[in-house]
């Protein structure tokens, strides 16, 4: 049905929800096949050990067991690693199963196939590994000393050094009137998608064709790379991402289990299924963060930021997964923040340790960068006794409507930061809060008030392929879209993005609906299957709308160009005499003489009277390679109450003002901000992977690894009324998937420090647990620092 309504910018209800809310979704564990075997992995209880022998005899004799396999039973290539960021980078060899050494708690050495999942798990536990334990190295700085070597053939744990180099006058870092030097530690985080990983491999053995159904963010990248690992011809491998229950970067990867399931299905000619357990997930799926920054800010007494310098150590884990060293590099392009320093420096070293590999985790490098920038700016404000809001305002980069080259060397597509800060301060009633804070301090209340700010930018829409090439990433950053207008009036959209919670079925339908004058109800979005949607680069890095969504826009334009030709032919007018208005091609001056897209789709389908050289069927494909990144920005303010006796923090108010460019669906944007901030609050106050002295993960279940529940997450005030269009793409879209996770951690931690800064506290690390806060207060008391720091007691000036 044709329609004259417009849908971009409307809170259209999610097309995905009825299926998800009524239990009709098809997550990987809903898939089953006749003759299917279950796979389980043997992960011996070592952290770092030389493997002396693997005895599979007992496991192989257990009920239901069909086979037990070790590395020597396979002829598999190493797992894919696609981002060798420097020429000199050392790359640890990473096979699907370890055979020489166990290098982290979770490294698998054997795989079991059995008739049931329970039988497979029991047999995997019975695989007997004899090993010589080695000292383990967990801490990054310890690992960098090379006293314990994780990969003997590399000879060092410091596997990569990437320097962005400097910009501007480096002497300010020595000579500026105010030099603030701080060290920030950001612990490892364990991504917690509600659905763990899992996969099902099956095939048509006579023709050697294989399908992998897998809980992944990247079916297209998985297809190409798994063809390489398994030796299956790429055109005979199909990868399907069914309904995927969250990823947050942890499913932006290609894992051993996927390669093993394919290899075993092919070998036994039976379907093979694997579902990851939650404890297994905590050690076998990539972790995030795990970085350490030495930071320097050069400034003046009146609050001008002259330069910022960051030297980072990043924990790679025991191996690289798909992108590992690329994550700190990605963050490396946003260390100027929304500010305008005239000098900067950024470099990092990647270090291997005896831990689960790290890789992308919501924000991927940009939260790590934003956290240290925003902590540093607050420290600067405290040092010179100024209000942190004032310091931010006076240092924000001036607005620009067109793209401008930043001091880091990339082009920022558009910027208008100060109104975002003002809006956030207004919504939170900043001056009133500062007054209340002063009152509480004067009274010496047990519960003190803290106000934390975070102004941020992010770099989204990954990515221009030529820049990815220059950064030595193996693939491109384009995406594809195909639109087919069926004679029934229905429109089929095939996107190369692969949603796992991002609402592409709804938002993409809105884009096409406006473009073609068709109701979203008549549009079906297909995704996540390399057969039905072969052109794609998948979903991560807030890229989907800014690349896949824009590809859709260009496919719409192609459809309309073809439809215009047919319409002109049928209406017997010149194409120039037609205009697109109110959802149809209309004759200028005679708007009732018109053709809608559904009408023209019928004409194109029966093809009875098409103009010469117009092919039948109204369909089009566009592949879009973005000319630039997109640069969302925002300002978040967090207000906390801190119990100064116990160190407990409660968030009492949270304001998120985000500018993500043109908004397709404000309800979806709000949902992304809510979820992102929740994850950021978790990072700021709760989550931290911990290890014992031997290197075993002690936060190995949800009982010990603290994921906050809805009770701990504050109500939020969100605002996205400012839409500064991107100059990178014709839709003006920028991306919103990671904004909350990028902005929230420093806002929350800055608030906690602010609450107790009058007691002399100047630093508290993430997560700001009650014990960390309590200790900071005790230490400040011990130092007699109380009242010594000017802090932000001056309030707004």
């Amino acid at each position: 049905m044709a329609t004259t309504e417009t849908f971009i910018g409307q809170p259209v209800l999610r097309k995905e929800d009825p299926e998800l809310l009524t239990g009709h979704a098809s997550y990987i564990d809903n898939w089953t096949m006749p003759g299917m075997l279950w796979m389980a992995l043997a992960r011996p209880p070592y952290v770092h050990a030389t493997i002396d022998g693997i005895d599979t005899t007992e496991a192989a004799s257990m009920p239901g067991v069909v086979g037990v396999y070790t590395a020597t039973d396979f002829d598999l290539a190493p797992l894919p690693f696609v981002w060798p960021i420097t020429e000199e980078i050392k790359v640890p060899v990473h096979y699907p199963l370890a055979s020489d050494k166990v290098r982290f708690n979770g490294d698998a050495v054997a795989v079991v196939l059995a008739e049931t999942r329970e039988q497979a798990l029991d047999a995997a536990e019975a695989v007997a590994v004899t090993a010589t334990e080695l000292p383990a190295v967990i801490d990054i700085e310890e690992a960098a000393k090379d006293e314990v070597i994780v990969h003997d053939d590399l000879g060092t744990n410091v596997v990569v050094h990437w320097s962005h180099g400097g910009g501007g006058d480096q002497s300010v870092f020595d000579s500026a009137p105010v030099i603030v030097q701080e060290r920030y530690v950001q612990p490892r985080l364990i991504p917690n998608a509600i659905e763990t990983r899992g996969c099902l491999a099956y095939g048509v053995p006579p023709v050697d064709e294989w399908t992998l159904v897998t809980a992944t963010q990247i079916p297209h990248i998985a297809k190409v790379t798994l063809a390489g690992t398994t030796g299956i011809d790429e055109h005979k491998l199909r990868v399907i991402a069914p309904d995927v229950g969250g990823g947050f970067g942890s499913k932006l990867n290609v894992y051993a289990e996927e390669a093993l399931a394919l290899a075993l299905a092919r070998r036994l000619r039976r379907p093979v299924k694997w579902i990851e357990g939650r404890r297994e997930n905590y050690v076998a799926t990539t972790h995030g963060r795990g970085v350490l920054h030495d930071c320097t800010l050069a400034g003046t007494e009146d609050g001008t930021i002259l330069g910022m310098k960051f030297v980072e150590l990043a924990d790679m884990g025991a191996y690289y997964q798909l992108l590992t060293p690329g994550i700190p590099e990605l963050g490396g392009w946003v260390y100027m923040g929304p500010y305008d320093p005239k000098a900067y420096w950024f470099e990092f070293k990647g270090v291997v340790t005896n831990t689960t590999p790290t890789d992308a985790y919501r924000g991927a490098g940009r939260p790590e960068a934003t956290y240290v920038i925003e902590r540093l700016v607050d420290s600067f404000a405290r040092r010179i006794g100024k209000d942190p809001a004032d310091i931010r305002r006076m240092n924000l980069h001036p607005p620009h409507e067109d793209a401008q080259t930043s001091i880091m060397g990339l082009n920022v597509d558009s910027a208008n930061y100060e109104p975002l800060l003002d809006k956030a301060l207004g919504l939170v009633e900043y001056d009133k809060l500062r007054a209340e804070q002063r009152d509480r301090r004067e009274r010496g209340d047990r519960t003190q008030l803290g106000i934390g700010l975070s102004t941020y930018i992010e770099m989204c829409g990954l990515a221009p392929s030529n820049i990815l090439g220059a950064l030595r990433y193996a693939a491109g950053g384009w995406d594809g879209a195909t639109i087919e207008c069926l004679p029934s009036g229905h429109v089929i959209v095939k996107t190369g993005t692969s949603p796992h919670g991002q609402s592409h079925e709804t938002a993409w339908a809105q884009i096409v609906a406006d473009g073609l004058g068709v109701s979203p109800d008549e549009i079906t979005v297909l995704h996540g299957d390399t057969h039905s949607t072969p052109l794609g680069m998948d979903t991560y890095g807030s890229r989907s709308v800014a690349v896949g969504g824009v590809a859709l826009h260009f496919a719409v334009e192609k459809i309309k160009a073809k439809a215009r030709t047919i319409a002109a032919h049928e209406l017997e007018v010149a194409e120039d005499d037609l205009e697109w208005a109110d959802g149809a091609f209309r004759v200028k001056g005679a708007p009732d003489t018109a053709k809608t897209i559904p009408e023209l789709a019928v004409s194109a389908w029966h093809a009875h009277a098409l103009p010469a050289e117009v092919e039948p069927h109204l369909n089009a494909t566009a592949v879009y390679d973005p000319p630039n990144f997109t640069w969302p920005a925002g300002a978040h303010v967090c207000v906390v109450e801190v119990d100064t006796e116990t160190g407990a923090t409660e968030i009492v108010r949270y304001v998120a003002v985000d500018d993500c460019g043109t908004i397709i669906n404000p309800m979806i944007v709000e949902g992304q901000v809510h979820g992102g901030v929740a994850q950021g609050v978790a990072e700021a106050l709760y989550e931290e992977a911990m290890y014992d002295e031997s290197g075993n993960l002690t936060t190995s279940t949800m009982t010990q690894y603290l994921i906050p529940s809805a009770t701990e997450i504050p109500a939020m005030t969100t605002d996205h009324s400012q839409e500064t269009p991107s100059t990178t793409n014709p839709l003006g879209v920028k991306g919103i998937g990671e904004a909350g996770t990028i902005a929230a951690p420093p806002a929350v931690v800055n608030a906690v420090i602010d609450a107790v800064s009058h007691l002399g506290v100047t630093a508290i690390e993430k997560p700001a647990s009650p014990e960390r806060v309590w200790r900071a207060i005790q230490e400040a008391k011990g130092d007699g620092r109380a009242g010594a720091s000017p802090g932000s007691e001056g309030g707004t000036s």
Partner: protein
Amino acid sequence: MIPAAFDYERVDTVDAAIAALRADEGAKLLAGGHSLLPQMKLRFVMPTKLIDIGRLHDLSYVHEDGGGVAIGALTRYHDLEASETLRQLAPIVASVAGQVGDPQVRHMGTIGGSVAHADPAGDMPSVLLALGATFVATGPGGMREIAAADMFPGLFQSALAGDEVLTEIRVPKTPGGWSYQKFTRRAQDWAVVGVAAVRMNGSANVSLTNMGLTPMRAAGVEEALAGGADPATAAERADEGTAPPSDSFGSDEYRRALAKVLVRRALEEALA
């Protein structure tokens, strides 16, 4: 994780439960299952058999009983929380029952299960200790009473014999001052540290949650109070005789400091 294989039997009487316990040394009673099943899934415990007593509805009750309140061992947290009798006569029990876990746990978990599990981080054992509760165990030889002070001899150990079923818990009427200070990271967590204080005979009984291998009375605090100390002074002795754990929720040192703060707050509230 998936539990190791086990047998399952549902019983309809306490006698049948006792007989089943006697028949299989590796058997365990299943009530609400919200402590036992998670441990089985992690394979920390691997019972050969589960004897399901969850439908012995006769053991679910709360009623006034002479000078105290009698509580059936299979009374679920939710029913304790909703009990008017408890709210009036032993309000600390009703209130704390409403703070255990989450709604799902409270609709399945039972007071007897919590006591028998004897988790030092459990709220209910600590509260019952402060109340000086009496525990009624039924075994092959009939019923016997166990005093609160004897009920929790060690980590995850109760005074119940292998063939006894906890059938009733009796608490004194304590409608006066009380407080339970539960410090958690997340609402549904076990207490990092908990403190129960109940006004009794002009002073207060004080017990500690998660400050050692067992729930324990804060003997130093009670002694100081008996000697006339004010709450703040008495609270300084909160960690005497404790051996708090160090884990991802907090160190030994932090828990000791926390116990002092929470005991002071509990006393201030209970004795107000």
